[in-house]
């Protein structure tokens, strides 16, 4: 009745935690990199002049300027969509944790061994596919 391989305990919610962690890390990395570069460049007239000059300058500042634009696009344009993308996956994983874990790699530090109860390829889950 209980404890056997066919009646698993409620699966640990590793996947939602992994999604949250990954989202938070990506957001923090993009936002931190963006703010860091923004304030670095705000105090660096060399790069401001480079933008104004149209790029006929040394490659170093030009590369820094291009990286800044790319990071800004990533932080402002891509990041909100990415967060929403992950939030939808998070909602699905909360609704159906077993399916969420089967469909993707288990989150760090939370994955039971393969074949164990509630694991991605565990026998208890096979009847639900």
């Amino acid at each position, binding site marked *: 009745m209980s404890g056997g391989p066919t009646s698993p305990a409620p699966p640990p919610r590793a996947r939602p935690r992994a999604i949250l962690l990954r989202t938070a890390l990506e957001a923090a990395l993009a936002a931190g990199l963006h703010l860091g570069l*923004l*304030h670095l*460049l*705000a105090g660096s*007239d060399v*790069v*401001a*002049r*480079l*933008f*104004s*000059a*149209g790029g*006929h*300058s040394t490659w170093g500042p030009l590369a820094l*300027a291009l990286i*800044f*634009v790319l990071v*800004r*696009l990533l932080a*402002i*344009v*891509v990041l*909100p*969509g*990415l*967060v*929403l*993308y*992950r*939030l*939808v*996956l998070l909602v*699905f994983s909360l609704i159906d944790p077993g*399916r969420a874990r089967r*469909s993707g790699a288990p989150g760090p530090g939370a994955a039971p061994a393969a074949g164990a109860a509630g694991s991605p390829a565990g026998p208890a889950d096979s009847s639900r596919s």
Partner: protein
Amino acid sequence: MGWMNINLGRVLGRVLRGRVLRYGLAVVALAAGVRLVPHWWCERGAVDWYRGGELPRALGRGTARWIAEDLSEQDFTTGHSKYDGEWLFATYMMAGMGFGQLALSDPGRRQEHLRLLDRCVERLISPQLRRFDALAWGDDPLESLARDDKDHAAYLGYLNLLLSLQRRLDPGRARHARLNDRVTRALVRRLEASPLLLLRSYPAEVFPVDNAAVVGSIGLHDRATGADHSRLLERWASRLSQRAVDRASGLLFQQVHHRSGAGADAPRASGTALAVYFLSFSHPRLSAALYQALRTRQADTLLGFGVVREYGPGHAGCGDIDSGPVVLGYGVSATGFSLGASRIHGDEATFRRLFGTLHLFGAPVRRGDRLELVTGGPLGNALMLAMLTAPRPVNQTEQPR
């Protein structure tokens, strides 16, 4: 057919329960996030800019920092000494226009902004800032005011617009009033003598947008002094509309042939948008007509961000010194100048969308009481100060909505 319904139902059920639904919805959320959030985020301060709140004054203080630096041609590396000098000149001219417009909109700090405007004029009339024009013509633009063989339209038109604005703001100030009168007289004489009613910016080079600065300065001078050049200005507007405006698009040709007056370059948005700004001082109706063409033909959105196509319909080209980089057909200058044009003509929706783009790529940053566009440099900050503080035309009833 019953088995088919059952199978279809099963397949649909699996699809809806499976990865397709999950990742499909996630991708829809990603697309919605990219489409809806970034431009909304970047447009947050637009209303304050549109209505002239604290932020434009903060940008004024940020631009003042550049102006205080005694910039030189070495601060600009366009790859051509004439353009370096032009950009240095444009930095002080546009900053001066911005300070003058701030003096108009903020009476409490009028004297502070007038002092900054005066500093810009002092730099503009210095030999260092006249050099690019003097080298191009082989003659100094201010020392040759009594002779009419060389037009000097770019230097004199832009300088005189600032002199006229200063005159209008501070009519009792005699220091540059005399120069304003002398330059205005020279420009009027040269226009009257021109078969095209257009002046040359450089030898054999005629740009309608520079001529818009010339007539804008004359119109503003008239308003400041009570002088009347209305007949010349009307003739000029009529001639420009017939010859220098592309009939198909309603945009200004970027350049016209110096003898025939025929279009020598494509109809383009960067020149048209800047002309909308200059003409708002002298020809509100023509300015409004050009703005309508700009808005209906050239303005567009990308992911909700406002952008403006550089080349008119049926034309294509690369970026140049006027347009700045042209990416996917959208011009940096055209988009930036259209900010001022939309503010002048009371088009808040377009202003907001264009402001979002400026925020994204300009990267404004507050530093104490100053605000600067990180990617703007001296010229970018000065241009945007002028555009973001551009005033409505005097006769608002003439403007379309």
